[in-house]
């Protein structure tokens, strides 16, 4: 399984903070986004925002970064701390 976590405005729009995906057919972050986008228009629209960031296992990553079974992927808007 691949655990996907959402934060801040994206979490609120989707109405969930975590989903689990079957790892079959998933080899990179883009595959995770495609799998989630297939859940419906709301998901596709929310995940198509150009400025979303991703992390794998607590480190910043990119759309083509490899993802494997057991990974924790996070998707979130640009950060605004400090």
């Amino acid at each position, binding site marked *: 399984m691949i655990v996907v976590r959402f934060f801040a*405005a994206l979490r609120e729009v989707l109405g969930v903070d975590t989903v689990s995906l079957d790892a079959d057919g998933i080899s990179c972050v883009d595959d995770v986004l495609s799998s989630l986008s297939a859940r419906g228009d709301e998901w596709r629209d929310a995940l198509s925002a150009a400025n979303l960031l991703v992390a794998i296992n607590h480190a910043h990553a990119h759309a083509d970064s490899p993802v494997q079974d057991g990974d924790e992927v*996070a998707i979130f808007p640009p*950060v*605004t*701390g*400090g």
Partner: protein
Amino acid sequence: MPHLIIVAEADFNPADLLEQLHVASPSVGAVASFVGVVRGVADHSIEALYIEHYPGMTEAEISRIVDQATQRWDIETVQVYHRVGRLALGERIVWVAVSAPHRGDSFAACEFIMDYLKTRATFWKKECFQESERWVEQCQSDLDKASDWQP
């Protein structure tokens, strides 16, 4: 002395944190510190900020930022304390302090860490008004400041 990295709802006491840095080695000749506080917004009556984070990643990312600072400047000890949860107008949000042999390194590392905290660490701010709330958008000037540090 090990670096201090804390993400918590509780407030921090700048005097206590500075005191901890002063226990440092005889090679320390300078301590630079920064405190960020909840500021009002010009056209709205902001009541509070709500700060969300990504437990685990946030601390890991701060640690990576601190590592970069220690590689780049001659510094001894770094303290980063970032609050989360609901913070009222005027409350302290963040503390960064750096001890070093000389002031130039402590000032530079302190500002570098703050600039990178703003653009890399996984925190998100929401402004809470009397009858509404909105997520804060990332500021281009913050991105510019962080990219200015790139060699």
